[in-house]
């Protein structure tokens, strides 16, 4: 007869992932796992939404955390845990996209070439989302890791498994391609 699991959860999603939490997760302690999830789930889900879209983000986020809890022994501590987490998440998103080869979906409204668009925050957000879906997934990842997750070039290199010296040039490409996509969608500064 199994014992009934009872755990208390600290719902304050503040603080950093520390070794005590990781050790608890390695032991399979549910409190620690829940704590880790609370500290990290927003950033993982956010990345997934912008990488693969809101329809698939929850499933992939779920998969990321299952991977993390199962494979935590592979995290050696040589990098920050958050960097390793982003790497798991980015790998998951890129693998998903390789399988499903998502296509960008243009905005339903036709752009008016001769008219400067008003800056409406909601529209800008949608424009950028559409432009992001149109660029190469790797470049999309790098842009999101820098602009949204605010990772350093060193951390981005570790997440993406690329030389640190190439992060700048890839961001150049990402930004230029996004700018071109936005122009194609009718956006002008």
């Amino acid at each position, binding site marked *: 007869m*199994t014992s009934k699991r009872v755990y208390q959860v600290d719902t304050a999603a503040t603080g950093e992932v520390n070794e005590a939490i990781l050790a608890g997760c*390695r032991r*399979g302690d*549910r409190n620690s*796992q*829940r704590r880790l*999830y609370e500290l990290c*789930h*927003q950033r993982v*889900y*956010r990345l997934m*939404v*912008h990488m693969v879209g*809101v329809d698939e*983000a*929850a*499933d*992939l*986020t*779920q*998969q990321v*955390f*299952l*991977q993390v809890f*199962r*494979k935590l*022994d*592979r*995290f*050696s501590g*040589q*990098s920050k*845990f958050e*960097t*390793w987490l982003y*790497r*798991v998440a980015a*790998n998951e998103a890129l*693998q*998903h996209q390789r399988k499903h080869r998502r296509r960008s979906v243009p905005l339903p409204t036709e752009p008016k070439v001769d008219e400067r668009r008003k800056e409406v*925050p909601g529209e*800008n*957000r949608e424009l*950028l*989302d559409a432009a992001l879906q149109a660029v190469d997934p790797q470049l999309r990842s790098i*842009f999101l890791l820098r*602009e*949204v997750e605010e990772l*350093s*070039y060193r951390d981005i290199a570790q997440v993406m*498994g690329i030389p640190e010296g190439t*992060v*700048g*040039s890839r*961001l*150049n490409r990402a*930004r*230029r391609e*996004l*700018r071109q996509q936005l122009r194609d969608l009718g956006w002008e500064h």
Partner: protein
Amino acid sequence: MECAKEQEMLSAYYDGELSSAERAAVAEHITNCPRCAAELAAFSDLSEMADALADPPVPSDLWSRIERDLDAPARAVPGPRGLMRALWLNNPRWVAMAASVIVVFTAAFLGYQSWFGGSSAQVADQAFQQYVERFQRDPEAAGRWLLADYRARPLDLASAELRGGFRPVVAGGLPTGYTLESAHLVEMPGGPCVHAVCRRSDGSALAVFERVPKADEKAGGCVCGDDCCDGSQCQMHQINETLTVCQPCGNHFVTLVGARNVQEAGRLVAWWQRTAGAGAPADGKAPHAIPDTGSRVPAG
């Protein structure tokens, strides 16, 4: 104005990743280069738009879905969507095999009646349950008890070829992250069984049982007997905190004691199935761990 070099450094300049000397050089260039200045302004526009990307609300049930998958062995009947979707994303072939997974949460074993043979089934049931209970407390002690109570001899898996040319699955090696600690042929009431103890990289133990097929059997049947499964599907049991998984593996049937979850069991079986055609190493040496190429999770 030629500014290929400065163009290349523009993002690093914008993100503050240049040395102070490089930064000063690029800054001076920008003051005299409308093209680079315009590009820098475009970077800033993108940043503003990225700032406007909303923090999407996380579905409120996401943790419970994760927890459900983590708890999968403890449930009487698994919720198919969460568990199967997680397995599907990992290994579609495993999903096809596990489509008939039946999870039974029980304090007593069901279906192990004929594991040790008909007339002594009840004794065998109790014996296996005792082994599992001992395994939970102390895997080494459980092994010593098993080997002491039943006739057992060490098995050299490199050259092991048992009745009818049968080679246990563990003779084909183990994926990265597991090492073989010991292997014995144990004379159980229902027939000889291979008992192997494996260690994960964190030192925890996992036991693998496999019944040697009888003379009239083409392959080893389910070690759990007919009441457990008909040999074509997976059956899982949990005794206290210990999970056991009875799993067809090609022409073999393995019982894993101490699997962490159904995913671990599935990965091991899938690995054995992939390497099943490799046969014994040509040099006759003991099998060695082979990298699990299916794994996606990097070392950190």
